[in-house]
């Protein structure tokens, strides 16, 4: 019995190792040919066999960054409300719905992105941004509807539930005496929350952000349906772009030639490493907050 269950548990480790190995082995050609230059070249040319990862890394990071800029304030705000203000039953009910939001598949977000967000962006939001903030290079260029900004907005909706549910948990785990001490000293509800509770849970909240970031980086379907699928590096958020996951989804089944295919696999390896590091940091941070429960908190 012990042996049987051990074998099953070991198979998990084996499969994971095999996955990393396959990614490594499957990307040997571009690693030898391009080396480190792969990460800083921006040309992606299957005809002349030149492959550089920069546009995809850029697109992945920019869209994730935009999504966090939107999702973190909203998510943290909602988490504060749920943890500090709402009565327990309301908090639990709302959390229930937010967990359901996390269960919506990526392709459905993509569907909504194509038919709702893109026209909204193209007809209203992008022109409005251009008129008001068009002096910034961020908001210049034609308003296609697709692009970095749209992908960022769709990703933001997708990652908010993660920020909310983890932040809510860590906020709830902050010991009561912290709040009460602040209130006893004359702080308002908000001051007690913002200046005492939130800093106390800071690491856990950071952890939730890293988790959300990891999710945003790996998103494939919703992104490829709204980002424009063009390997471009541009300061403008209106520009169409590409992300690592999206280019793999689009070009993997048709990459003729080993160097082409393996360059895509190397991109997969890069993505894997990015999410691996972020997930690791996230977990560390969340654990750190939990451990603070016993000691004296330092703001």
């Amino acid at each position, binding site marked *: 019995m012990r042996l049987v269950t051990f074998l099953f548990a070991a198979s998990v480790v084996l499969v994971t190792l095999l996955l990393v190995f396959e990614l490594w082995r499957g990307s040997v050609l571009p690693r030898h040919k391009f080396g480190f230059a792969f990460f800083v070249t921006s040309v992606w040319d299957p005809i002349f066999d030149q492959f550089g990862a920069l546009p995809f890394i850029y697109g992945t990071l920019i869209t994730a960054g935009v999504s966090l800029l939107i999702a973190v304030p909203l998510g943290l*705000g909602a988490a504060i409300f749920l943890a500090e203000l709402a009565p327990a039953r309301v908090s639990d009910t709302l959390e229930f719905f937010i967990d359901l939001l996390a269960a919506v598949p990526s392709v459905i977000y993509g569907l909504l992105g194509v038919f709702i967000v893109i026209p909204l962006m193209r007809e209203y939001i992008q022109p409005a941004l251009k008129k008001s903030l068009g002096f910034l290079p961020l908001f210049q260029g034609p308003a296609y509807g697709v692009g970095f900004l749209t992908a960022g907005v769709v990703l933001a909706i997708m990652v908010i539930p993660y920020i909310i549910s983890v932040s809510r948990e860590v906020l709830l785990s902050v010991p009561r005496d912290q709040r009460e001490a602040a209130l006893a000293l004359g702080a308002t509800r908000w001051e007690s929350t913002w200046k005492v509770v939130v800093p106390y849970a800071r690491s856990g909240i950071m952890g939730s952000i890293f988790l959300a970031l990891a999710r945003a980086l790996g998103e494939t379907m919703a992104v490829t349906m709204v980002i424009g699928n063009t390997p471009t590096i541009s300061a403008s958020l209106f520009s169409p772009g590409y992300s690592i996951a999206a280019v793999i*989804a689009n070009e993997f089944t048709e990459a003729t030639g080993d160097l082409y295919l393996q360059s895509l696999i190397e991109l997969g390896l890069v993505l894997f490493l990015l999410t691996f590091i972020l997930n690791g940091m996230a977990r560390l941070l969340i654990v750190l907050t939990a451990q603070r429960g016993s000691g004296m908190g330092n703001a």
Partner: protein
Amino acid sequence: MSARVRWRKFVSAFMLTLTGICAFVAVAVLFFILGYLVFHGGSSVSWSFFTKLPAPVGETGGGMANAIVGSAKLLLIAALIGVPIGFLGAVYLAEFSGGSTAFVVRYAADLLNGVPSIVIGIFAYSLAVLPFKHFSTLAGGFALGLMMIPITLRSTEEFLRSVPNTLREGAMALGASKWQTIASVIVPAAYRGILTAILLAFARVAGETAPLLFTAFGNRFWSPGWNQPTASLPVMIYTYAIAPYDDWHRQAWAAGLVLLGLILVVNIVARAILARGVAVPRS
């Protein structure tokens, strides 16, 4: 009350209202999504949607019968892979293992959990498609099963661990072997949580599209057996949504509604099972 205090109280009320708005917005999004899908997809969810095969390109009519059955077959294979490995692996972690092995296994599971689904697709392609020289339901199910493993494993382990030691000790005091203890005492005690974990893992992979792109591929007809490419709901939604045909858009909405409806129902049922059952500490 001084002006400063009034100001601080105002700020407090204002900021806290803002947070309430944030929460409201987040929840509203969910209902908006649902409502929009019902509005657009509801009218297209017809009998022919469930029973007809896709029509030739450009012609109207046709349905997604093969995609619905295909998704069901894929999920069956995924469950056959994900559930035993996840469950039995969790039993090992909770009941048998020492500290360091447990750490390694948990770490590997968390790693696997964090792998982007497109990368799982690459892996499944090289392992389950290339050597056999064809796309298949089995390959797609394999990819989805891989994604189910970590979710099932970690959650099941938590629920098994949460069973109080007194139950274990009581059983062993009565002369039960380790295996009997696990099978007749511990697992039944934790079964609600385990079922919830399996259902949630199920709901998670039911909507996955990316890994199926290079494994199950696609099929305009019924997929015979398990060794041929198959259509699936998520991939059909993707294909139809980015195409220009209005009839295909209509069907994509319907499929989206059906898929999301299924996922939400499974999620709600899973949580209901947990809520009614044994009180377990929050993870």
